[in-house]
C-alpha cells in the first residue's frame, strides 16, 4: 500500500463555459402523480438537465462514493473553469465533504449561456489544476516532517479529471499539450520552493461529454504515456445517465473498488415512509442491494479462484459483482469474530428504499452475517456487515481453515492445572485486604456476595476448571460449598481491621446457606483463620499496594485446603465406602463457631491455644473427644442423653465459658 499514490489527490476540472448550459436532451418526467389522479389535467412537460448539471451531479456522486469509502487521506480539489478558474475548496481535511462542495457549487450557479464564449476556456481550469497538484497536503506535510532527512520519500502524484465539451481530437491534443507544458513549468517553480512539491506522476482523465443524440466529435483513447510524468486517456461519453455511469466506473477503477450484492434481504413494506401507494403490500419481499467497497474484501475469492461472479470486466459493461446472501441475525450476542479485514462501504443506489432499509438496519447497531452461495450447497459465512459509530464496514471473516486448528488447550500447559484464580470474587478479594474500607467498598463487597448468591440460585457453573482434578471433579453444589468456605475464611482473616470488615462478614454469613454437613470444614476454617491472622500481621505493609499478590497467596492456602477436601470428597462420594460416622451432635457444631467468631478481637489466650491446637492438629488428627471437651473433660455417652430428650445445648454453652 502506498499512501501517496495517484489517488491521494484528485482534481476535478468541470467546464463552466456557455455551451455547458445546453440541454443533455434526456428528459426527466417529474410530474408523476397526476396520471392516476384527476382526469383532464395535462401533466407538466418533462424537463431535462443541462450538460453542466449532468457533469456536476456525476462528479458529486464520484465524490460521495469516495468520501464514504475513504473519508481520510483521499482528497478532492474542485475547480470550475469559464473566463477564469474558480477553485471551490482546498486540500485540507475540513474541506473534504459533500456539503462544502454543494454549497460552493450553488454559489457558482449554472453557466451563463449569454456569456462571451471567446473569453471562456477549460484551459484556465487545467492550469489551475496543475498548480493545485503542486500544493502540499497536510498529510504530505506531516509525513515529510516525520521522515526528516528522508522527506524525499514522500511522493507527489495526482489525477486530473476534466469534464468538458471538446471540439475535436486536435482540440483534445491541445489540452493535453497544455497540461504537459504547465507541469513542466510548475515543476521548475516547485523545485525552488518549500511549500510546493514537484509532480512526479499525473494521470489526466479527459471526459468529453455531449448531448444525447448528437455525434461525438472526439474519439475514445486508452491511457497513453505522454511523458514520464504525464499519462492521459480520453473518454467520449453522452451526457445524462451515461456520464454518471462512466464516472461510477472510473471511481471504481481509481480507488480499487469492487462490488458486492447482498441478496435475499427480507424487507417489510411497513419500513416505508407513509406511502398510500404501497400500503397494499402486506407481505415481505426479498430485495438485493449493491454495495461498493475496496476490492481487498474479495481477496479470498480471487485467491481461491472461486468466482461466482456475474458478467465480465469489459469496460463499459462494467458490472462485476459478488453475490452474498443475507443471514437473518438471530441473537444480539457479542462475539469476537476472526476478521482479516474491514472495509467501509457505499451503497450504489444510496436513496433507493432497499438500500436505505439495509443501511438503517445496520446503523441501528445490528450486524448481519453474509453467506457465500456455493454450488456444492455447503454453507460458508464469509463476510459480516456491521456499523461502528455511524459508519458501515464490510468485515471479511476468515473462511479458510486455520493452521491453528486443534491446538492444545491452555489447561493442558503450564499453570493449566491451577486454573481457578478466583476471578469472580476479585472485587471482594482485592478490597477486603485493605486496612480501612469506605462505604463504597463495603457496598462493592456486598454486591459481589449477592452476585454469587444469585449465581448459586441460578445454578450457574463457577469459573473453575475441572481439568486439574481427575475424573468428573466436584459437583456444582460442592464447588459452591468450597467457594463459600474459602470466601468466609478470607473475610474472617480481615474482620479485625474495622467495623466495615465486620459488616462484610455479616453480609456473607447472612447470605450463605449452611448445610449441616459443613461442620467439619468449619473446624478447619478456624485453624485456617489462625494462619491468616499471622500472615496478615506481617504482611500488612504491602497488602495495600499488592492486592493481587495477596489473593495469590491466599489462593495457595485455599488450594491446599481444596485438595484436602477433594480427597475427603472422593471417599464420601464413592458408593462403596461406608457412610462416614457422624459422631458429633449437629446442634452443637452449628451454634459454637458463630458465638466465638462474632466476639470481635481475640484474646491472647485464645490466640495461643489456637496456635497450640493448630500445631497439634498437624501432628495427628485430633480426637473428637478432645475437640468437644470442656476443660479437657469430655462427656461420654452424649447420645444417650439426646435420646432421652435432654438439652444438649447446655453442654455447648458451658464449654464456652
Amino acid at each position, binding site marked *: 500500500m502506498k499512501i501517496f499514490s495517484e489517488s491521494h489527490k484528485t482534481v476535478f476540472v468541470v467546464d463552466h463555459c456557455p455551451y455547458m448550459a445546453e440541454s443533455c436532451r434526456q428528459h426527466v418526467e417529474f410530474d408523476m402523480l397526476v396520471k392516476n389522479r384527476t382526469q383532464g389535467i395535462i401533466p407538466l412537460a418533462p424537463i431535462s438537465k443541462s450538460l453542466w448539471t449532468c457533469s456536476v451531479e456525476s462528479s458529486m456522486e464520484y465524490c460521495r462514493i469516495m468520501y464514504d469509502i475513504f473519508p481520510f487521506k483521499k482528497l478532492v480539489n474542485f475547480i470550475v473553469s469559464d473566463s477564469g478558474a474558480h477553485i471551490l475548496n482546498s486540500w485540507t481535511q475540513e474541506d473534504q465533504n459533500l456539503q462544502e462542495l454543494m454549497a460552493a457549487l450553488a454559489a457558482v450557479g449554472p453557466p451563463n449561456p449569454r456569456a462571451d464564449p471567446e473569453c471562456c476556456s477549460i484551459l484556465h481550469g487545467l492550469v489551475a489544476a496543475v498548480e493545485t497538484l503542486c500544493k502540499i497536503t497536510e498529510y504530505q506535510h506531516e509525513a515529510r516532517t516525520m521522515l526528516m532527512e528522508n522527506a524525499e520519500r514522500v511522493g507527489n502524484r495526482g489525477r486530473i479529471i476534466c469534464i468538458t465539451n471538446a471540439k475535436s481530437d486536435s482540440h483534445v491534443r491541445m489540452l493535453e499539450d497544455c497540461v504537459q507544458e504547465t507541469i513542466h513549468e510548475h515543476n521548475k517553480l516547485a523545485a525552488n520552493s518549500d511549500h510546493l512539491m514537484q509532480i512526479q506522476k499525473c494521470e489526466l482523465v479527459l471526459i468529453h461529454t455531449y448531448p444525447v443524440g448528437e455525434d461525438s466529435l472526439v474519439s475514445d483513447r486508452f491511457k497513453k504515456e505522454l511523458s514520464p510524468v504525464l499519462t492521459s486517456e480520453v473518454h467520449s461519453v453522452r451526457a445524462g445517465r451515461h456520464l454518471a455511469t462512466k464516472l461510477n466506473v472510473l471511481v471504481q477503477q481509481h480507488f480499487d473498488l469492487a462490488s458486492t450484492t447482498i441478496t435475499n434481504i427480507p424487507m417489510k413494506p411497513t419500513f416505508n415512509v407513509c406511502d398510500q401507494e404501497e400500503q397494499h403490500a402486506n407481505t415481505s419481499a426479498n430485495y438485493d442491494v449493491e454495495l461498493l467497497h475496496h476490492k481487498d474484501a474479495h481477496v479470498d475469492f480471487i485467491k481461491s479462484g472461486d468466482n461466482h461472479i456475474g458478467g465480465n470486466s469489459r469496460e463499459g459493461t462494467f458490472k462485476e459483482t459478488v453475490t452474498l446472501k443475507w443471514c437473518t441475525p438471530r441473537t444480539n450476542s457479542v462475539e469476537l469474530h476472526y476478521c482479516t479485514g474491514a472495509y467501509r462501504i457505499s451503497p450504489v443506489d444510496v436513496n433507493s428504499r432497499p438500500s436505505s432499509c439495509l443501511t438503517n438496519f445496520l446503523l441501528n447497531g445490528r450486524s448481519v452475517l453474509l453467506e457465500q452461495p456455493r454450488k456444492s450447497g455447503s454453507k460458508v459465512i464469509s463476510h459480516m456487515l456491521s456499523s461502528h459509530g455511524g459508519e458501515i464496514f464490510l468485515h471479511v471473516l476468515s473462511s479458510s481453515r486455520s493452521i491453528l486448528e486443534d491446538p492444545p488447550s491452555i489447561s493442558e500447559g503450564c*499453570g493449566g492445572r491451577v486454573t481457578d484464580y478466583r*476471578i469472580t470474587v476479585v472485587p471482594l478479594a482485592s478490597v477486603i485486604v485493605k486496612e480501612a474500607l469506605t462505604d463504597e467498598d463495603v457496598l462493592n463487597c456486598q454486591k459481589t456476595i449477592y452476585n454469587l448468591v444469585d449465581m448459586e440460585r441460578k445454578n450457574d457453573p463457577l469459573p473453575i476448571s475441572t481439568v486439574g482434578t481427575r475424573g468428573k471433579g466436584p459437583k456444582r453444589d460442592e464447588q459452591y460449598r468450597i467457594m463459600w468456605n474459602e470466601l468466609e475464611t478470607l473475610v474472617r482473616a480481615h474482620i479485625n481491621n474495622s467495623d466495615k470488615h465486620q459488616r462484610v462478614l455479616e453480609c456473607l454469613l447472612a447470605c450463605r446457606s449452611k448445610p449441616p454437613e459443613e461442620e467439619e470444614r468449619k473446624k478447619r476454617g478456624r485453624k485456617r483463620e489462625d494462619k491468616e491472622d499471622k500472615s496478615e500481621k506481617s504482611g500488612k505493609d504491602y497488602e495495600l499496594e499488592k492486592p493481587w499478590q495477596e489473593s495469590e497467596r491466599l489462593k495457595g492456602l485455599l488450594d491446599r485446603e481444596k485438595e484436602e477436601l477433594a480427597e475427603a470428597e472422593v471417599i464420601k462420594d464413592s458408593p462403596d465406602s461406608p457412610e462416614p460416622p457422624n459422631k458429633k451432635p449437629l446442634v452443637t457444631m452449628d451454634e459454637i463457631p458463630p458465638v466465638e467468631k462474632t466476639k470481635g478481637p481475640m484474646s491472647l489466650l485464645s490466640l495461643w491455644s489456637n496456635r497450640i491446637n493448630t500445631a497439634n492438629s498437624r501432628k495427628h488428627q485430633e480426637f473428637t473427644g478432645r475437640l468437644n471437651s470442656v476443660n479437657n473433660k469430655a462427656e461420654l455417652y452424649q447420645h444417650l442423653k439426646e435420646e432421652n430428650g435432654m438439652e444438649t445445648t447446655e453442654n455447648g454453652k458451658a464449654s464456652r465459658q
Partner: protein
Amino acid sequence: MPTVVVMDVSLSMTRPVSVEGSEEYQRKHLAVHGLTMLFEHMATNYKLEFTALVVFSSLWELMVPFTRDYNTLQVVLVTDGCLGIGRGSLRHSLATCNQRNESSRFPLPFPFPSKLYIMCMANLEELQSSDSLDCLERLVDLNNGEGQIFTIDGPLCLKNVQSMFGKLIDLAYTPFHAVLKCGHLTSDVQVFPRPEPFIIDEEIDPIPKAINTDLEIVGFIDIADISSPPVLSRHLVLPIALNKEGDEMGPGITDDTEDENSANQIAGKIPNFCVLLHGSLKVEGMVAIVQLGPEWHGMLYSQADSKKKSNLMMSLFEPGPEPLPWLGKMAQLGPISDAKENPYGEDDNKSPFPLQPKNKRSYAQNVTVWIKPSGLQTDVQKILRNARKLPEKTQTFYKELNRLRKAALAFGFLDLLKGVADMLERECTLLPDTAHPDAAFQLTHAAQQLKAASNGTSEYAAYDHNITPLQTDFSSSSTERI
C-alpha cells in the same frame, strides 16, 4: 506457516560422496540426515507446524499429505542441482514458461503467499560449473523473490549438511519467544506461528517492522467495544515452562516420555500468568490490548476452539496510531479512573465506544441523488404528498421543499425549481372547497419563493437561504370565529 518438503529422488541423488571415513554416503543420505534434523527441530520447538513430503524425479509422488488446507506455505526443496535434460527438465520448462497457456500455467509463483527454500546437496562451485544455480535462482525470482537458496559450504559431509540445515532452521523455524507482561505479572511465552515482519508503506517506510519480544499489556476493553476488529494475523500464546533451560532448546531430546509427562505435570501446577489472564478475559468478556512496538498494538483474548478447549490468542492490528477508527487514537485511551466521569456510567450501562466520525457518511445523512429519474421523482412526490395535507404537514412540506431547493441550486438545475413551482401553483387551483384556507396561501408562497430562486440572481437563490412558512393567523382567528 505449514511446510511442504519436496525431495529430489532422481538417480543423480544416489551419487556417492567421497568421505575419508569407511562408510560410503550418497547425496540422498546427506539429504535424509539434514531433513531428519529439521523434523526433529520441529518436533521439539515447533510442535504445531504441519508438514507434508513430496518426492520427485521425472514424476512426483505425495508421500505424506497434509490433512488440512492452508492459505500460506513454506516449501523446502531438496535437490542436488542436477536438473536433467530434454523435455520436462527445469531448463526446458523455464525456457518455455512463457509459451504456456492458462490451463497448464507454470507452477510459480504459487497462488498463495509462500516462501521457497532450496536446499542443494552440492556446493557452490559444483552448481556454478553448470547453469544450475541460475535456473534455481530463477525459480526464487518467479516466486516474487520470496525464498532463498542454500548450498553446502566445503566438502559434502554430514557435518556440513547439518550446518546448512541449521541455517534454514535459524531463518525459518526459530520459535518466537517473548515475555508477556502486565504490571508486575509476567510469563515467558512462545508465540505461534512466528509473527512475520510487516511493511507499513513500501514507499515512505520500506523497512519491515518486527514485533517486540516484550509484550506489554497496556489495557483492557470489552469485546463489544472492540467489535470484531480486522487483524493482520493471529497467533497462539503458549506459556513456556521454566525448568532446565538446556532441555528446552536442544534438538533431539531423548528423554523418555514418562519423565516428560511428570515434568509437564509439575509445570501444570505452578501458577502461570497466561492462565490467569486467559481465565479473566474469558469470564469478563474482554480483550487485553498489548503493545507490540512503537505505534503498534494487538489484542489478547480467549479463543475457544470447541466447548472444552480454549486458548490464549494474540491478534495483530495494522501498525499505526489509529488502527481501529471506532476506538480513535490508541494513545488517547486510558484507565477509567483517569476520566472525570466514568465513561461507562455508574451502572455500566453505557459505553464511550464506538466513536462517532466527524462527518456523516452519505447513507447516514439523507443526501440528494437524482442520477436515476426515480430519485428525482420520489423527492418531488414527497413534496406533493405533503402539499395535499397542508396545513397539518407544513413543517415536513417545507423541509422537503428546502432539501430539493438546495440540491437543485448546487446542481444548477434551475428548470426543476420552475417546474416544481408550476406544479405547486397547479395544486393550488386544484384544492377542494373543503381545504383549509392556509393551504392555498402556503402553496402560493412556496411557488413564489421557488420561482425567485430559479432566476438565480436574487438573495432567494442563496444556498443557505431557507424558505420559511408564511406567517398566517388562520389557526387563531378561525377558532375565534367559530
